């Protein structure tokens, strides 16, 4: 099923696995060189920057080529039918297959761009057909299933993270649309059904340990964790309830609301605790981010403190808590340590932190001529500004 040379894939896992060891001094450099020679990987795998450059250029080429073809055939009105994007998508896909086989590209930017183009064109064309055929009920479900199947195929073939993520999301959407067709009972039980679906998805993919698809499995697991949380998040449930019952946003009551509050508050904590216990970075980080989401959710309903007091207090608490934790973890505790992980290419090497601080602090306008924001209040959005990287 997978398009790549399986021997090389196996060799790649071995080499990737050992990458950090010569730097950390566990094995000698000569040994690593010998192993690399014995386990050759013939793929073209450029670095992150090269891939980004190739990705941008391939996108430009594909865009211009599609424009050119559409322009040349504009007189025949063929572009006005859903067959046209599907035709273009098939061309993209064929080029993708040929290039990947011939040049041994492995997520090198060129193949990523072609993959997303063909997925987008094929998916768009199929959705167009569905919307044109005037199905009254279940067209959402059908669309979600079609996209899901398309992305599952592409993921199995190219082991791509983005298509895997889209497949997972559309799978959840299919469950949602399917259950929504059950009528009122379906809508009332929706959060629980989504929770079950997400939990089942996580459980299934947690068992899988397929080497070729390891990154795809990770992204699906992360999305399942997020869906599991979102399904019971009070804000999500409340908005959904309002939309489905045609209420406006002022309604903040949800039947059995306390269940969802407990869910919103405790699930991130459970993720963090489990992550620490099982030494699972993914669970830990997802839990930390979702804890932030929970705080925002809570604040959306209960304004216990004015925003500035909350910011200051939470900043103080965060600083104190992390300081104490760092102090205590100086000597490893229960196998948890503060020492930096032994990995090649940590974020520090990219100099990102400095750039992020620069980005966050660039609005700190000292004594800017203008009374509107005279001091550094602007940096309050510091956490959000890192999104731009």
């Amino acid at each position, binding site marked *: 099923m997978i398009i790549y040379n399986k021997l090389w894939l196996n060799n790649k896992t071995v080499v990737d*696995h050992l990458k950090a060891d010569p730097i950390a001094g566990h094995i000698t450099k000569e040994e690593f060189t010998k192993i690399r020679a014995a386990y050759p990987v013939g793929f073209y795998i450029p670095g992150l920057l090269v891939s980004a450059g190739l990705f941008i250029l391939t996108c430009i080429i594909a865009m211009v080529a599609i424009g050119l073809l559409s322009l040349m055939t504009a007189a025949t009105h063929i572009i006005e039918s859903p067959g046209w994007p599907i035709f273009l998508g098939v061309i993209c896909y064929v080029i993708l297959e040929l290039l990947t086989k011939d040049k041994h590209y492995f997520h090198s930017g060129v193949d990523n761009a072609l993959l997303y183009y063909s997925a987008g064109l094929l998916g768009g064309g199929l959705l167009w057909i569905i919307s044109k055929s005037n199905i009254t009920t279940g067209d959402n479900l059908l669309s979600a299933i079609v996209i899901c199947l398309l992305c599952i195929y592409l993921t199995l073939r190219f082991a791509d993270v983005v298509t895997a993520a889209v497949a997972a999301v559309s799978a959840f959407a299919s469950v949602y649309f399917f259950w929504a067709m059950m009528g009122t009972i379906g809508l009332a039980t929706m959060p629980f059904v989504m929770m079950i679906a997400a939990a089942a998805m996580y459980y299934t993919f947690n068992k899988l340990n397929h080497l070729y698809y390891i990154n795809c499995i990770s992204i699906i697991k992360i999305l399942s964790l997020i869906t599991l949380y979102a399904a019971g998040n009070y804000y999500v449930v409340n908005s959904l309830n309002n939309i489905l019952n045609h209420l406006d946003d002022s309604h903040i009551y949800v039947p059995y609301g306390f269940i969802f509050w407990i869910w919103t508050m405790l699930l991130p904590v459970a993720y963090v605790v489990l992550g620490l216990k099982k030494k699972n970075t993914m669970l830990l980080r997802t839990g930390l981010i979702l804890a932030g989401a929970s705080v925002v959710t809570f604040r959306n309903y209960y304004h216990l403190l004015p925003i500035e007091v909350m910011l200051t207090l939470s900043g103080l608490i965060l600083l104190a808590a992390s300081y104490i934790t760092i102090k205590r973890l100086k000597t490893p505790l229960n196998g948890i340590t503060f020492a930096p992980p032994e990995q090649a290419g940590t974020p520090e090497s990219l100099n990102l932190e400095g750039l992020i601080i620069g980005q966050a602090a660039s609005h700190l306008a000292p004594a800017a001529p203008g009374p509107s924001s005279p*001091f550094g209040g602007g940096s309050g959005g510091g*956490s959000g500004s890192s999104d731009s990287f």
Partner: protein
Amino acid sequence: MEPDIYSKLHTEGYLSDASFEKIRQKQSNHLFSVHWELKTLLSLGVMLLSGGLGILVYKNIDTIGHQVILAFIALICIGCFTYCFKNKLPFSRAKVKAPNTGFDYILLLGSISMVTFIGYLQYQYTVFGLNYGLATFIPMLFLFYIAYYFDHLGILSMAIAALALWMGISITPKTLLAYGTFNSRDIILTYVLFGAMLLAAAYLTKRFDIKKHFKFSYHHYGVHVTFIALLAGYFEFYNEALSVLWIVILLALAAYILWDAYQEKSFYFILLAILYSYFALACLLTRMLFATMREDSIYFLFMCFIGSAIGLIFLLININKNLKRDDHLQ
């Protein structure tokens, strides 16, 4: 499956007994690192605290009194710097590591509150009068001094931003694109000057070996600012005969960046130089074709784009290969 790989390699003879023993030891006391998580929480704490204090001061200005606020901010600032001066490692022209993890964050908090303090003084008491230049110049000097003295890349970025502010512009790629204040010729010229200063600073940093690792920050901001400003200049003077001069300067700059990037073996800057100059040439080509062929040019133009972009892809792949080969020779 982890031990499998190692034992397999061991039996195949690729791993010596000593290395295998080391790996086994590593695996038996494998530790789970929460380094990045805690560091992120620390930065988040600093950001929240400084942001919250900023708003707190802003909202309560009438009730708590300016002196109290100033004293409070000054206290934080002095506290942070006292700590930093006490715990710092001796100054060196090379990279100096922070003595402990909290150090960088305390320094950051101190610097932000220092900037807030000066800004507040100026806003409330107009200490520098209407001389806004001076009011931005002094924090900038402080920030550069702190960045070099304590060796902090984040504060260097803040200092560069302050320099831009002093010159009357605001940088970082996001603000450059978001606010897009390229409508006046003075601003464009200031941008070009500012970018050239940064590039010069990058060159000098390396040439005289003062904090060599700062070069990347200078170069990064310098390259983006100068290229974008030159392109803006080209479009601003679009209808004048001199507009081509901007492109010529841009290409000359790209040649310099390329030369420098090859010496540093930095693919990032090679990529930037190539992409920016490609964009400039594409603009020039479009203009020339439209001038000569009018509407018919569009097909030809599209084909040109496709062909040149494919060519560029091969070029990038080749450059990357060559850079890597050089790496292996070392």
